[in-house]
């Protein structure tokens, strides 16, 4: 876990190996570009001169030939272990020990694990209330910084991206009916929100329209080789973040529901991973129940498309010549006009509507 100016994010290691040396200790600050640890790849020779405490000065850039990858989260190499029934990360255990705190007196985070932030909060709260108010803290989230990050992204989007918008009203009655039947036979913890099939339908639509899934860089569209849909997730009284669910099109609806729940929880507690914040290929923003009927979204640069859904609301609709009440949702597609045209966006929405009209096919 690394605290950055965009909030706390988990840094993943993308290479197998042995954690040979941790260069930046928990709680220390490090400049951008500074290696955090060395991972020795399988078969690779051990480093001849382990970096000593003395050489690790702030601002110094290490560029070791032998380092497999410079970044590693301590928790990735040493997963949370269980000791006396308390699930705690090794770093948190050390940190707590340093401050002579009893792990059993600490409250776990929302994921059931005691991490550094739980220990930190206990220390801040002082000995009397140690562990009492830990859940209240949305660690790693600074409202001011989040606002500035949003401002930077949307300012860039409106300055650089010539948006076009196309809107289609989609009849969600079949989907809502199908979901109600499905949820009726399930225990409450296994029920689905319509956001899950919606997310799947959007991902499958981007799979069908690869020319809308990717980024615009150096004057040209670069298609992405996978589909990672970013979800706009609101953080109460703070702002919003758009972390991505990787390979969204490869997940079934139940998996997407679980991942969505997990993503919302980690967004609001400041535990997102770097890949989730940097690897999105297109974005979905879903206003949700009792909000507004439609919105015109702003593309998240350098992506080239965003899909925005208004609330689902019973409204008059013509079916076979008769006006009837149906559950309608206005969906707006915003595209980067440098990469595609409105007609393409309209085709995308048509395909999305056909998927949402036949929920049994995407479930």
């Amino acid at each position, binding site marked *: 876990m690394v605290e950055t100016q965009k909030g706390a994010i988990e840094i993943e290691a993308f290479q197998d190996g042995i954690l040979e040396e941790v260069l930046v200790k928990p709680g220390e600050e490090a400049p951008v570009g500074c290696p955090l640890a060395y991972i020795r790849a399988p078969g690779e020779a051990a480093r001849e001169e382990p970096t000593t405490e003395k050489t690790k000065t702030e601002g110094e850039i290490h560029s070791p030939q032998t380092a497999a990858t410079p970044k590693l989260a301590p928790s990735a190499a040493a997963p949370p272990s269980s000791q006396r029934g308390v699930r705690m990360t090794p770093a948190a255990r050390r940190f707590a020990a340093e401050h002579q705190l009893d792990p059993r007196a600490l409250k776990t985070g929302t994921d059931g694990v005691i991490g550094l932030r739980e220990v930190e909060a206990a220390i801040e709260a002082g000995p009397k209330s140690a562990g009492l108010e830990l859940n*209240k803290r949305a660690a790693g989230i600074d409202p001011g910084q989040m606002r500035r990050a949003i401002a930077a992204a949307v300012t860039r989007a409106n300055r650089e991206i010539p948006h076009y918008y196309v809107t289609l009203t989609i009849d969600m009655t079949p989907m809502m009916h199908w979901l109600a039947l499905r949820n009726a036979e399930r225990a*409450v913890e296994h029920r689905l929100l319509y956001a899950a099939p919606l997310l799947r339908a959007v991902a499958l639509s981007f799979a069908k329209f690869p020319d809308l899934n990717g980024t615009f860089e150096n004057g040209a569209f670069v298609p992405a080789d996978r589909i990672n849909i970013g979800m706009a997730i*609101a953080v*109460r009284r703070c702002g919003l973040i758009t972390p991505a669910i990787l390979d969204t099109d490869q997940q079934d609806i139940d998996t997407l529901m679980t991942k*969505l*729940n997990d993503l919302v929880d980690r967004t609001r507690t400041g535990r997102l991973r770097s890949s989730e914040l940097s690897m999105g290929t297109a974005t979905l923003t879903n206003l949700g129940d009792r909000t507004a009927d439609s919105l015109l979204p702003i593309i998240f640069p350098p992506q080239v498309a965003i899909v925005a859904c208004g609330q689902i609301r019973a409204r008059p609709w013509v079916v076979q010549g008769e006006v009837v009440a149906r559950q309608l949702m206005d969906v707006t597609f915003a595209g980067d006009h440098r990469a595609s045209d409105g007609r393409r966006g309209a085709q995308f929405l048509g395909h999305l509507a056909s998927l949402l009209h036949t929920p049994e096919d995407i479930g």
Partner: protein
Amino acid sequence: MTEDFEGVVKDALFSVAPDLEGEKIDPDKTFRDQFEIDSIDFLNFVIRLSKASGIDIPEEDYPELESLQDAVAYLCRRKGSK
């Protein structure tokens, strides 16, 4: 026997939105209007309410759980009719 249904509802709400713990709750106003509770928060709230009270809550009853007052009344009724 009088159970503390208000306590059960508050615990469920604060466990899905820990940042709200200690906030005053207007009993008549919906959680959604007061605290920007969204669909995912609400589903998790119902899950916790169901676990804590031992009541199976069907989806069509969700509208009866949207404020503190309504949720307490719902639990009273469901527990009473058992």
